[in-house]
């Protein structure tokens, strides 16, 4: 349980354009965002690595009704991305007209970067909310 990545470190790195995660020394699978064990085999034998930050959109939705604390941000598009290294991550898609493009967005290549937003009453990080932003590579 040596080289652990805290969530603050993970989000700090993301704001600086780096996506952190683990590579498993036993099964070689990648885990991102970080968790206590390898997401594939459960091993604690993990090495801290920087991932490429590249991936493909697997699904997305544009949100029009926001929860308390997020109302100034609507409409916004949440997406899941499958990273080159295998893990999936959740973030926001930096595309204005996602609903008009529709299903064709699925499979599009993106890169991820972190952007700081104001935190809200219940968010675990009381200083800021770092949102992974997915930008289309075209």
């Amino acid at each position, binding site marked *: 349980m040596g080289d652990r990545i805290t*969530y603050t470190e993970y989000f700090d790195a993301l704001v600086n354009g780096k996506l952190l995660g683990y590579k498993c020394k036993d099964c070689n699978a990648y885990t991102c*965002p970080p968790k206590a064990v390898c*997401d594939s085999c459960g091993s604690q034998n993990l090495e801290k690595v920087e991932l490429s930050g590249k991936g493909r959109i*697997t*699904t*997305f*939705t*544009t*949100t*029009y*009704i*926001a*929860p*308390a*604390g*997020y*109302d100034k*941000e609507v409409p*916004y598009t*949440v997406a*899941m991305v*499958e990273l080159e290294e295998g*893990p*999936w*991550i*959740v*973030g*926001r898609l930096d595309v204005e007209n*996602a*609903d008009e493009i*529709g*299903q064709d967005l*699925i499979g599009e290549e993106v890169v991820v970067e972190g952007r700081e*937003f104001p935190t809200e009453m*219940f*968010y*675990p*990080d009381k200083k800021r*909310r*770092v*949102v*992974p932003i997915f930008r289309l590579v075209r």
Partner: protein
Amino acid sequence: MKKRDVAVLGVGQTKFGYHPDKSLVDLFAEAFYEAFNESNIELKDIQALYYGNFVGEMTDGSANLSGFISDEIGLKGIPARRYEAACASSSVAFREACLAVAHGIYDCVAVGGSERLYNAGTAIGTRALATAVDGLHEMTAGLTFPGVFALAARLYAKKYEIPMEKLREKMAQVSIKNHKYGAMNPKAQFYNKFGDLKVEDVLNSKVICSPLTLFDCCPMTDGGSVVIVASADFAEDVIDKPVYVLGTGQSGAGGLFRQKEDIIRAIPRKVASEMAYREAKLTPKDIDFVEIHDCFTIAEIIASEAMGFFEYGKGADAVEEGETWVGGSIPINPDGGLIGKGHPVGATGTSQIYAVVKQLRNEFKYNQVRDAETAMTDTLGGDFGTLVNVILSIHRRG
């Protein structure tokens, strides 16, 4: 150790909807006394209280409710505990209660839940519900519950190569069916409302999280429900028609990003339902109808596949072809489900048990499934995270 058979003595449910004048305690008490009064027991027979509640802290500023409730309803001094598993809170509580009775810890217990999301308003209600997504990595993007199922709908359309507009029409059929049945149910939030929806009504209602519209979503609801559970021998001594708990199952998973493409296969549900089938020594073919967790239209479709009623990718066709309507091969949600009846989160699981027990006793006059003998419930907590399945029957285990 040999487990004892377990049965339901009595069931109660408040009207679901808007209850600005009833506290979480009041809603539970109302449902409890309906269940207690048909159970033919005395208060001193109830040895423990299992209470399901999701977000009492956020909607009513109240936690630690199980002890207060126990005292307020006259069950002074008995062990009482709260279960929180998002929308599956009272289903987890129900299963734990059944396990305690099966293993001889108690002979008779009360289990149920109450919740007040309508009264909390949309902004707080939406934020409260979103506490069931991953608090760091999903919440930071503003993922909401309609959002979770919108992500699943797009993934489903992609995976099974169904054009999104076509899938939306099939999803609309779930809303039409469940609103039709909800409109017939006097205890439903939408009693006498939306009983005659058309596909266009669903497609053209307000977009919440694309592609899901308002009519794809269950409402915010206040309500309570309670079930009295006892050993089968105890039950047979005090009432004429116990409904037996033949099997239960529970499983779980991490956030959406950990489950990846599996969210449309709902693996924890497959595990939980197989656990319940195995304990009951039954298969999906033996189930006469099912109460499924239709928090959103696509949720019912995915669930019907994972529980083994339809092949993966075929659940959307099944609803369109009438298979899941009353009279079809496997009626789903004859009480209106979450979409038509309402979804007071912590009370939802035991309200499914309420609906099944009423049906199996032939007391569900407004939309009775004919000759139903064995039925099942399915409750999902969080983003495909916690799954509970229960099989109930008028027949005691052979």
